[in-house]
């Protein structure tokens, strides 16, 4: 009780200047980038949507008139159990001129039997199998090699798709002919499964759904999710397909950007995925994602920073933004903590609760303000509201620590090459070639 009184007295005694001094990190970086810039972009986007409406309708009409042939490729290992459900749900799609190609990357379970029988009964159009596992990139490339469509849609076997998802993800190709690849809106299906999944659902709604509308508008949208992405076949062919992962989704996005294409995020093309339901699994997944920042931004694609033939300002900015907000700020944050400990050590007792209060207020404000921009929600706002206070710990501490660990591991030890996600034969080559 006494603490609350003291805290209240302390909080009310802080003036604007002092508040800024204590929370400079928040005001300069986070509030600016993740609230002000995003909300401004979103408002502009919403405001101009009226003018885009007829153009989008025209694009949709052109798509439905031309009926381009599309190849849907689904690479994976031991995914047989999901394939029937996936194939069956794709039969419900509003857009039907596609072939469904399943690529089996050396499954050692029932997958071959399942897929062969599904192919026989016409549920899938083609089934290709590597008897020896070659990694996700080579599986996707095998699908690409034998796809006949003008567009290639990359799906994950264990995701499910809205009835109009395929139609919606194709429309932008006819809206802007310079678009080379389109990312779908990935939502969390199992958000009720555990606290861990619920927090990720909020994260996806925030950074993935709304955040990507903004970054797409700003031209700095970085990663087309492997769960749902559409590509111009010609662009993929020019690149020879995907390179070795992990992080191949981000990598292919950068490479398509480098070819001069625009990358677009389509919020109306909705896909539901299952996220890791325990923190242990989540840590493993995020370590892999975060390591790919170092591997791809700083090593493989460092040329975007140099003014050469393929130099583009949007690529440059996208990279700088990415590196600033993920790598540099991650380091800066520790400076901030040090600053607080040294200069405000005696007040930490009050600063930490105030910090939590501030972030929570920001999160709630952002969640509410951004809500109107989310067309399709998996649950009412109130369902998630009660979890919002926890997001401070999730974003501010949990993800940050995981990220730091990933950067240290990758920068100094290049551990991603040891990841069993790829077969050893491929990783060895990736490392040697500094990919």
């Amino acid at each position: 009780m006494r603490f609350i009184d003291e805290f209240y007295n302390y909080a009310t005694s802080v003036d604007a200047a002092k508040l800024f001094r204590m929370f400079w990190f928040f005001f300069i970086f986070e509030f600016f980038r993740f609230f002000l810039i995003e909300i401004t972009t979103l408002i502009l986007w919403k405001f101009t949507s009226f003018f885009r409406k007829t153009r989008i309708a025209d694009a949709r009409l052109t798509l439905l008139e031309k009926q381009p042939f599309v190849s849907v490729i689904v690479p994976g290992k031991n995914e047989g159990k999901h394939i029937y459900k996936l194939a069956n749900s794709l039969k419900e799609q509003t857009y039907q001129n596609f072939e469904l190609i399943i690529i089996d990357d050396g499954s050692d379970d029932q997958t071959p039997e399942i897929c062969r029988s599904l192919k026989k009964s016409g549920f899938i159009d083609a089934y290709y199998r590597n008897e020896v596992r070659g990694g996700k990139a080579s599986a996707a490339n095998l699908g690409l090699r034998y796809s006949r469509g003008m567009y290639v849609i990359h799906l994950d076997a264990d995701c499910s798709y809205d009835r109009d998802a395929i139609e919606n993800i194709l429309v932008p190709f006819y809206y802007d002919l310079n678009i080379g690849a389109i990312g779908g809106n990935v939502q969390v299906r199992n958000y009720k499964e555990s606290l861990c999944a619920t927090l990720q659902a909020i994260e996806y709604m925030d950074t993935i759904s709304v955040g990507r509308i903004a970054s797409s508008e700003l031209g700095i949208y970085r990663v087309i999710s492997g769960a749902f992405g559409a590509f111009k076949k010609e662009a993929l062919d020019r690149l020879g397909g995907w390179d070795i992962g992990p992080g191949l989704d981000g990598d292919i996005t950068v490479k398509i950007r480098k070819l001069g294409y625009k990358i677009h995020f389509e919020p109306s093309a909705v896909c539901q995925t299952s996220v890791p339901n325990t923190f242990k699994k989540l840590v493993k997944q995020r370590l892999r994602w975060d390591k790919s920042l170092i591997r791809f931004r700083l090593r493989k694609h460092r040329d975007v920073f140099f003014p050469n033939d393929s130099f583009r300002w949007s690529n440059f900015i996208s990279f700088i933004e990415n590196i600033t907000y993920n790598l540099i700020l991650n380091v800066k944050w520790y400076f901030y903590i040090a600053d607080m400990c040294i200069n405000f050590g005696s007040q930490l007792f009050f600063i930490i609760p105030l910090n939590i209060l501030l972030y929570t207020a920001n999160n709630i404000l952002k969640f509410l303000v951004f809500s109107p921009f989310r067309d399709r929600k998996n649950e009412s706002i109130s369902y998630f509201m009660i979890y919002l206070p926890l997001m401070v710990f999730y974003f501010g501490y949990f993800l940050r620590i995981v990220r730091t660990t990933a950067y240290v591991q990758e920068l100094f030890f290049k551990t991603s090459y040891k990841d069993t996600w790829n077969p050893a034969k491929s990783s060895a080559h990736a490392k040697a070639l500094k990919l």
Partner: protein
Amino acid sequence: MKFDKIEIIDNKIEYENLLFYSFDSGSSLKIEHLMGYDAIIIDARDNDFARYIIKKIRTHYNPEFYLKPIFLINYKESKDPFLNYLHDGLVYSYDQIKDIAEVVKQIFFKTTQLDYQLIPSFEAQTMKKVLNYMYTRELRTLKPYVDLNSIIGYTFPEISVHFDDAEEAQVLEIFDWAEREGLIWPDFHERIYLCNQCSSGFLSYREVCPHCNSSNSKSEDLVHHFPCAFIGPISDFKNPIDNTLTCPKCNKGLRHIGVDYDKPSIIHHCNSCDNNFQDFFVKAKCISCTQDIEVQYLIPKSINVYKLTKKGRAAATNGFLSSGQEIEDIFGTINMATFKIMLHYELERIKANPSQKTSIAIINMENIFELYNKIGKKAEKKLLEDLVHMIRENINAADFIAFENSSTLYLGLMNADTMRAEQQLMHLSILIEKVIKTNFNGFDVKVLHKGKILHTHSKAEMQLQEITKDLFD
């Protein structure tokens, strides 16, 4: 030692009270004229002629003919199992008749021991003939021989001779039946697969495109280049100039399999429909009827060597009782046992009331098995049900029907003397022939029937046997 000169007069040879008939391709003789001859010598210079005569004799319904000793003269090597296994000896000149006389006598002696009981079922009749033949030749096993003339590729000469080459699959069904009856014992020899349309065993297995069934395709290795994750058929990597392998994505040469690249699988390209696939369909094309069949729909059959059981060996001399096929559950019929009991009571009733007239009758559809073999078990049962339904509509409610087997049925006709019974049977026969003809593509079934009034001076079962015998004689 005295040498009898062997003389052939009008194809006749006499030797020690034995009369031989010598067949050559010039002779035109009705088989029935062989009555009274003890053995036949066929001039086998013309294989086809010899085969024709052997088949004609061995398939005759009368044991007098089908058991007749046959010898071949001027026989040259042949692969035809009928020529090789259905004769009783080879001779090189007519002088050898002295050597074969003993064989003829031995067969004749054995023939006198046979039982000629008539069994009103197609399977049983056929099997009985085979068992009789085997007994007189002291054979214990029925062996399969590879035979290109037989539609299933195998022939069991002693039994197959009764069927056309195209009907060979029926032989296997008779074996199944005989095995169930405990007459023979199978010893696995080979497994065969038959066309589900025409029972042919001549199938051409091909790997075909799953999209268009064409067998015109090209197969290639898939190559995975590790450094860049590119994967494609080996032709993508082939350099037309110097035949080296170069990655089309990163332009590096492939160096060492397992180190910088591997071949994770094989891919096929169909030249007919341009599709790519990895899993061929295996289809069997029937050489006989040209149908293309997925292998899982082929009919698997065992080719066995059959040994006669004790029951089988005894059947030739003692006869055997067929247990009949289980066709009791056809609505409107009773089983044979019940039929006999009812007949027994009927007889008692007539004894007490001599003005009562009841007849028993037998109807046999002689060639119905040809139809059954075409339409299968299910349609067979449906046909029998329809026939019973139709017969029921044309007889009295108190009359009763029982199936002996699927080709023969017995009727108990109340208030009918022999004349009335014969009239009713005539009417039913015409109806049966008509129904089958209209429902099965004009199939002509041959219906035999016999009716007789029950009399009180012998047992009901005896009277049943009598009309059965009368019918088949």
